């Protein structure tokens, strides 16, 4: 039973990282949003599995929140926004996809190296590997924010970063439930705020390319 638990948790967390790479790879906005929904779904499953093997029932609630908000509401809202704003549906990248993927692999290697080293004293192998995967997801989310120009894909990068945080929080036993709830809600609010901003940017500049903002501030690049 224990081996099963380990393997499935490992599989789910690993899939999250894999999906993070998929996010980086996407060059269409709708596909990006779909992949993001998939990541949120996997996150919900991972959290639910953790709830099952840890016997921590409040984590089911976390899983439900992840499922409802991040796998359904947020992608749906972003879909709607993209359609209503009539955004150019290409994802404009700063760095090419291949170098970004290579950098992402480097980041995963770094986080695994770091986490396995740092937590060498801990006995719970599951938690260690989970943390390593979670850190990878966080770093990949940040990488995505840095290498994309489009505001929508930056939002997706931010959300996926947050997925990594939730994964880390549930993997480590004993994280207070309140913390998870508040993280979930703050992310939701962040999405609302960012959404409002997107509309404002779009109204003013006819584009959600954040470069327009930089031009507006009169900055050189």
């Amino acid at each position, binding site marked *: 039973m224990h081996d099963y638990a380990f393997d499935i948790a490992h599989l789910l967390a690993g899939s999250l990282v894999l999906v993070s790479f998929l996010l980086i790879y996407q060059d269409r906005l709708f596909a990006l949003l779909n992949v993001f929904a998939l990541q949120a779904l996997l996150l919900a499953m991972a959290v639910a599995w953790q709830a099952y093997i840890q016997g921590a029932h409040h984590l089911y609630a976390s899983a439900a929140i992840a499922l409802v908000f991040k796998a359904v509401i947020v992608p749906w809202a972003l879909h709607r926004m993209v359609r209503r704003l009539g955004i150019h549906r290409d994802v404009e990248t700063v760095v090419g996809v291949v170098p970004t993927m290579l950098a992402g692999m480097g980041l995963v290697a*770094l*986080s695994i190296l*770091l986490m396995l080293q*740092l937590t060498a004293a801990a006995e719970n192998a599951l938690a260690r590997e989970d943390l390593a995967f979670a850190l990878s997801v966080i770093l990949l989310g*940040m990488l995505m*924010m*840095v290498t994309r120009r489009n505001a929508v894909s930056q939002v997706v990068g931010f959300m996926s970063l947050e997925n990594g945080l939730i994964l880390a929080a549930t993997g480590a036993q004993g994280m207070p439930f309140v913390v998870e709830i508040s993280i979930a809600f703050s992310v939701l609010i962040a999405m609302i705020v960012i959404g409002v901003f997107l509309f404002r940017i779009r109204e003013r500049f006819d584009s959600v390319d954040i470069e327009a903002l930089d031009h507006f501030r009169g*900055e050189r690049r």
Partner: protein
Amino acid sequence: MMGVGVAATMAAFLLALSLAAITIAGRRSAPSIIYGLSGAACVVLALAAIIALATRAEATSLTVPIGLPWLGAHLVQDALSAVFLALLGIGGAMASFYAIGYGRHEHEPQRVLPFFPGFLGAMTLVVLAGDAFTFLLSWEIMSLLSWALVLAHHRDEGSRSAGYLYLVMAGFGTMVLLLAFGLMAGAQGSYEFAAIRAVERSPGIAALVFGLMVVGAGSKAGLVPLHVWLPVAHPAAPSHVSALMSGVMTKVAVYGFIRVAFDLAGPVEWWMSPIIIVIGVATAVMGILFAIMDDDGKRILAYSTIENIGVIFAALGLALAFQANGMHALAALAMTAALLHAMNHMMFKSLLFMVMGAVLNATGRRDLDGLGGLIHRMPVTAFLALVGVTAISALPPLNGFVSEWLLFQTVLQSPQLPQPALQFMVPAAGGLLALAAALAAACFVRFYGVAFLGRARSGDVAGAIETDRWSLGAMAALAALCVLAGILPGYLIDLIAPAVDIIVGARILPQGGNAWLTLVPVADVRSSYSGFLVMVFVAVTGSAVAWLVHRLASQRLRRGPAWDCGFPNADPITQYGGGSFAQPIRRVMASVLAAHETVTMPPPGDPGPARHTAGVEDLAWSRLYLPLASAVTGTTIRLNALQFLTIRRYLGLVFASLILLLVGLAIWN
């Protein structure tokens, strides 16, 4: 309770007076009211401190629930604080009374009045502070208010750049002090002086605290090479403020150094003392050399302040050397010399700054070569100035001689020190101090001779009239103090003996009861000095010579040649001037002063004049400050690009630093 209560009340009163001054500064009567009340508060402060010293009062303390919530403001008055409170009170009172007259000439009194009492109050609080927080806060208030006073004449470009330089140096000094007190408080973070005193600290930490203190307090006092702000900032302020800054504020810095180095930081190692002695001696010699070279009267006085601070620090270094070797009686001698010189310097430097203020008001000039012949126009000021320059040149029977003599008595005891390094170094330092004293005399002969004697060197002197009564009164009081402290030094030394006792754990022999008011620092057989007898001797021989000359020489009718070496030439420029006086010393000391001298001859056939230009340069500027400043400017200009990045690049920077830290962590593990 009594002692500290009075002082704390006066400090609070002075700070409140600053606030009140904001509201009434515009009125015509405001200067008299504000300066009068400040002066009265300072008189009370000085009297209370002197009474506390004379009655050998115990240390009193007071905790006011202001400041950090768990700490409050601790105020303590012990004998050391009392000595500096007396110094501050006398200096502050005289500057205030002087300003009742002098301040009438101020064009914008609202730029001076609100800051003046607060400056005095903040200095009082620095001396009273019994915890690190109160000390640093008051120190910073003192710096900022004096900065505002330096900027009183802010329309003058020179004042503005002086103010900026002062602000930078003061900020740097406070930062260093902050580090020193942080180190002393240690990880437990007890900021009360009593708790700091009790902490055991490793020699490394103690040495670090000591070094930081030298830099922090030294930058305020004007130790070379941290002195560069002083000769520009002190003269930029109105003269009564210059008197306070030079006479009193530098002493507050000396107080801070003594309090930490001798009292709080714990036992000192002997090797720290030569550092202080070297810095002190270098400061003394460099300060007075630049004073001789300068033409601006107030700047000469500011440079001379640097010299005197150097002398005080050299004495403190000697005290450290003796103290570290357990020779408490000799440490007491050195410490007495330091405190006495601090006291004396307050008297004559305040007096001379006031004299320069009076001259500035009367003529509108402070460059020596634009003055001359003032002894005819301002006879009383000229006489008081003579007392001041005699005192500052360390001539007997005035007070400057007493403290320098005590210092040299200490130097003569150096063979008793066990360390060979000190045995060799201290006599050399003594020689350089003697050089500084001689140069000081030359400097003030030049100062007095060029400004007050001879014939007027510019038309501005012709309209000069004697200054007002308040100013004269304050100057006369300071001159009287210089004379009294010169002929009755024993009583002054007995007064500061309790302070010496609590710092070094010993005191020199009581001096008050000696016959003929004689000073006997070590033992009767070794050396003694009686200011009173010297004064009587000087008076008697002086009168006799005057009478003889008058009797034998003046009555004969004499005829002189019509063209006496060109001197009766009407042009005052033919007189011996400030530049002429400085030239020999500039040439001898050319390498130290980075002196330059060029003669430009017109080409043959050109009737234009040949030009001779000469000047000196402060090496601290070109070797230390300018490279530092250009490095800082260059870095900031390069970093300026960071202001104009895109949002994505800012995110990228955050991301990159995170990755860098993670990689660092991975490698470090």
